[in-house]
């Protein structure tokens, strides 16, 4: 028996916002029930759960809900489940579920990412280290934190600065990614930031860690996003068109330390190579790109890593913003990404890709009837990518 095709059969998302009254588990239940209904399933059909990164008692705003919590809440009967921080970034949960279905370990896997960072304690690194008492750290971060390189903004700025220096990339080019996100968010009722943004607004926003300013950074939020993966034959009766996972990419070949990489190279390039090695599609076949933009520079990196332009050409590719606009050759993050939509942390890109491929994206629907979408998550040593196809 050959391995089944794997499709996204259902999607769901809770309310998205700051200081939402619901708990992380309540948000997860909202998103799960919406996704299960969207797939035409019942809770008793779900036989797998996958989440990133699993319950983290030490950093609950970052991950307040684990696989067991939703299993218990909905009385799921699971044959397979996992929650892991290590893997192909946030998409690792979905890629694990894809593998589990391919292996026949489960038929319908509920994948979720839940965050309560919009309710405070957003940046766990920052809250853990920027304080008036001495902290001793082990592991990789012992080589980074003592230099007050506390925030992910610092770690990624080092990649961005080298990109600027090697390739002549500019703040104005990076700004096009933020502006494009904002234009999309203006047509997304769930987006966090919906006021118009100009290049002047972008350039005059305060610097955080050069060359990245405030509007290069996404914003913490409360949200739960659920993606249901099914074996294609088991989803044959779904009310919505199935979105097939054509290819996945993850892994890492280069140095894995945040400060050990051959900057500006990241694991994203390894994910990109793997993704294209497993499909007959080519970058030019992609109609729509949902690329991780926890920082604007990461979306630029993904454009290069997935081969939409050459290495170092990300700045020129986004110049002027036309190519990546909703009506451009490669629409980028039409929902506003995380930059303007809020840090739903990876899964929001998958959710939007499915809406767009189904033609359900409303006012922000890209017009060209997209059939192939590239989705990516992560930065630095963490990277995952998928090619989604509506056959």
């Amino acid at each position, binding site marked *: 028996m050959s391995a089944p095709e794997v499709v996204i059969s259902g999607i769901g998302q809770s309310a998205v916002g700051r200081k939402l009254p619901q708990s992380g588990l309540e948000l997860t239940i909202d998103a799960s029930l919406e996704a299960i209904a969207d797939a035409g399933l019942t809770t008793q059909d779900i036989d797998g759960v996958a989440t990133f990164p699993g319950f983290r008692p030490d950093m609950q705003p970052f991950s307040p809900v684990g696989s067991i919590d939703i299993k218990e809440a909905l009385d799921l009967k699971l044959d397979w489940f996992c929650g892991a921080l290590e893997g192909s970034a946030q998409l690792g949960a979905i890629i694990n579920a894809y593998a589990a279905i391919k292996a026949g370990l489960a038929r319908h896997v509920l994948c979720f990412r839940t965050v309560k960072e919009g309710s405070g304690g957003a940046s766990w690194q*920052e809250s853990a*280290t*920027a*304080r*008036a*008492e*001495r*902290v*001793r*750290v*082990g592991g*990789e*971060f*012992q*080589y*980074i*934190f*003592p*230099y*007050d*390189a*506390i*925030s992910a*903004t*610092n770690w990624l*700025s*080092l*990649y*961005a*600065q*080298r990109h600027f*220096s090697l390739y002549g990339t500019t703040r104005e080019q990076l700004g096009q990614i933020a502006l494009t996100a904002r234009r999309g968010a203006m047509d997304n009722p769930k987006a966090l930031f919906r006021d118009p943004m100009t290049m002047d607004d972008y350039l005059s926003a*305060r*610097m*955080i*860690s*050069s*060359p*990245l300013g405030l509007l290069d950074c996404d914003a913490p939020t409360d949200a739960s996003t659920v993606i249901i993966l099914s074996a294609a034959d088991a989803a044959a009766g779904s009310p919505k068109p199935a979105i097939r996972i054509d290819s996945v990419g993850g892994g890492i070949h280069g*140095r894995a*330390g945040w*400060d*050990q990489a*051959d*900057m500006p190279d990241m694991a994203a390039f390894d994910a990109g190579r793997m993704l294209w090695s497993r499909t007959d599609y080519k970058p030019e076949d992609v109609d729509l790109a949902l690329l991780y933009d926890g920082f604007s520079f990461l979306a630029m990196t993904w454009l290069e890593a997935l081969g939409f332009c050459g290495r170092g050409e990300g700045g020129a590719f986004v110049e002027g913003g036309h190519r990546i606009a909703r009506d451009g050759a490669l629409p980028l993050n039409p929902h506003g990404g995380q930059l303007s939509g809020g840090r739903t942390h990876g899964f929001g890109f998958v959710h939007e890709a499915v809406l767009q491929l189904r033609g359900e994206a409303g006012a922000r629907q890209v017009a060209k009837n997209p059939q192939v979408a590239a989705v990516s998550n992560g930065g630095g040593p963490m990277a995952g990518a998928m090619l989604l196809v509506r056959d």
Partner: protein
Amino acid sequence: MSQGYQRSLPLLDDLNRFYWTSGKDGVLRMLRCQSCGHWQHPPRPVCPKCLGRKLEPDTLSGKGKVFSFTVNAKSWGPGLEVPYVIGIVMLDEQDGLQLTTNLRDVAPEDVKIGMPVEVFFEKDEDVWLPMFRPTMQAASA
């Protein structure tokens, strides 16, 4: 005793103690494979190039070049003074032998990728943190 921000410090153990205390005599040391000569940082108990298990701390010149940098402008906690420069320095001894540091004795706007720098140490409790500054030109008139 400062009431304000306290930088994090490394948790010393048998593998990293030599590195974090190397500055006691003003010299930067990293693990070096005794079989093939490969420098290994951060410290690990095996050489990734030849899989040799005999690695010993060895002396480096302390000279390198700025591989990348960022000027941090946001204060991440009360009392953390800004701006400060975070750098990645690639050491002269080996391509890819690099570390995070702070770049000192240089105005943030004067830092450039490729700039030659040299190590000095800043003692904090039982730790000597390797810091870097522009290389002194011994021959300068």
